């Protein structure tokens, strides 16, 4: 991840693209290229935004979705990281479980939606379950791979300097896999955010995914666009948040090669 230094003016380029897109959007809607009922104007979307904020619905939906993603994701991280480490360490267990893990890793979490509803009904739990199914397997596999790629010389050095048991885990193994795990967390958090929208569309009574499904059913295309914009912005925000982890000094080595 090399960062190129660009002059300050280039920071304005994304803003210019945004303005151009808004202008194109207004032009398309004011010349009625598509019917208003299928292609809401920027003005109606802005009004929809205000309406959603005023009624408090937008805030509620955001909180509901973020709560589900956070719970499912953290559950997957706290269970998946230790399991990944254990599998990295135990060759027999790895041989036994790897095919199954790969199977579930490649099975779309959305395929679980029917079971999620049958088992857990409607609401928080099925969504959390689906997010867990989406993030658990990638976290396990990434942790396992990271453990396997620790240079053996680190363990020999650790032995020379008397790192054993707890100290070995906390001061050698975990810091050695940290950069790769952080990268995996970024990918997985993005995946979770994709899944929560789909989960709420079908198994929700609130949340941003439900909001856009509800808007579609009520033919409120303006609110649908509001939901899309918020979902996209939060997705970007989550990734930016996790990028901060890569700025921790003791993990920088993993990204500067």
């Amino acid at each position, binding site marked *: 991840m090399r960062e190129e230094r660009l002059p300050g003016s280039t920071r304005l380029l994304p803003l210019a693209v945004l303005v151009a897109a808004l202008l194109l959007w207004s032009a398309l809607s004011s010349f009625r290229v598509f019917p208003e009922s299928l292609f809401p104007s920027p003005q109606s979307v802005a009004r929809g935004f205000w309406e959603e904020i005023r009624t408090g619905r937008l805030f509620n939906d955001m909180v509901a979705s973020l709560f589900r993603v956070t719970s499912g994701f953290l559950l997957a991280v706290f269970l998946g990281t230790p399991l990944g480490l254990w599998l990295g360490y135990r060759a027999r267990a790895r041989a036994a479980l790897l095919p199954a893990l790969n199977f579930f890793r490649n099975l779309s979490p959305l395929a679980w939606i029917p079971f999620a509803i049958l088992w857990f009904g409607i609401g928080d739990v099925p969504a959390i379950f689906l997010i867990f199914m989406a993030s658990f397997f990638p976290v396990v596999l990434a942790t396992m791979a990271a453990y396997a790629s620790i*240079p053996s010389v680190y363990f*020999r*050095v650790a032995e*020379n300097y008397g790192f054993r048991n707890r100290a070995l885990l906390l001061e050698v193994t975990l810091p050695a896999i*940290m950069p790769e795990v952080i990268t995996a967390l970024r990918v997985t958090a993005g995946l979770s955010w994709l899944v929560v929208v789909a989960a709420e569309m079908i198994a929700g009574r609130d949340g941003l995914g439900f909001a856009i499904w509800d808007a579609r059913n009520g033919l409120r295309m303006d609110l649908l666009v509001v939901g899309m914009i918020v979902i996209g912005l939060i997705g970007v925000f989550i990734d930016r948040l996790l990028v901060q982890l890569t700025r921790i*000094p003791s993990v*920088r*080595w*993993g990204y500067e090669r």
Partner: protein
Amino acid sequence: MRDSHLSMERVSLSFGAVEVLRDFSLEVGEGEFVAVVGPSGCGKTTLLNLFSGFTRPSAGLVRCNGRIRMVFQHDGLFPWRTVAENISMGLREVRDVQERARQLKEMLALIGLEGFGEHYPHQLSGGMRQRVELARALAGETDILLLDEPFSALDYLTRLRLRKELARMLRERPRTVVLVTHDTEEAAQLADRVIVLSERPAHIRCELTLGLERPRDATNPQVVEAVHRILTELGLEHDPENVLV
């Protein structure tokens, strides 16, 4: 360095069909610096692995008295620890916080890296990193240093500089040392005794004892003479006084 010594008695070792050592014996006394040179792939590193207990012999006896630290060919510094934190690994047994800080400062001064304590290894040059490795290995209480081609990844001038530095550091903190290297000049400049190994299965082709004080210059006539003898033994130089017919 209390009563530290290393020995191998009639050690044999095979990896599958590959016989690395047959009936190999070697003794390293307390405070002695022994360098092992030989053709690549002859099992030099295996000797260090046997001494450190990482590899077990197929037959024979390996004795090792004292606490060991090994310095590796490839980066053995922990990249997630700063220079100071890496060197502090060698001081883990020092309980007193102030004493540890004092010794850390001393080690940083010894390798001339004051002011670099808070840097991470990836922010340093190869030569600086290798210096930190040596400081880490020499910090605190240890008896035996096993060096596995510690300077092989460095350019020639840096290598010369670090040899001097190692010799100087060892004068202040004497250790029993086994150095494995393919650099005959390095061996002759640093060691009390140079062991020249044969091809696999390795045996000792010859042993050279240098009765010189350490540290010494690479161009010291006796060092040059020793290099010549080692190279002759390896079949890479011709000895006019001892022409084989």
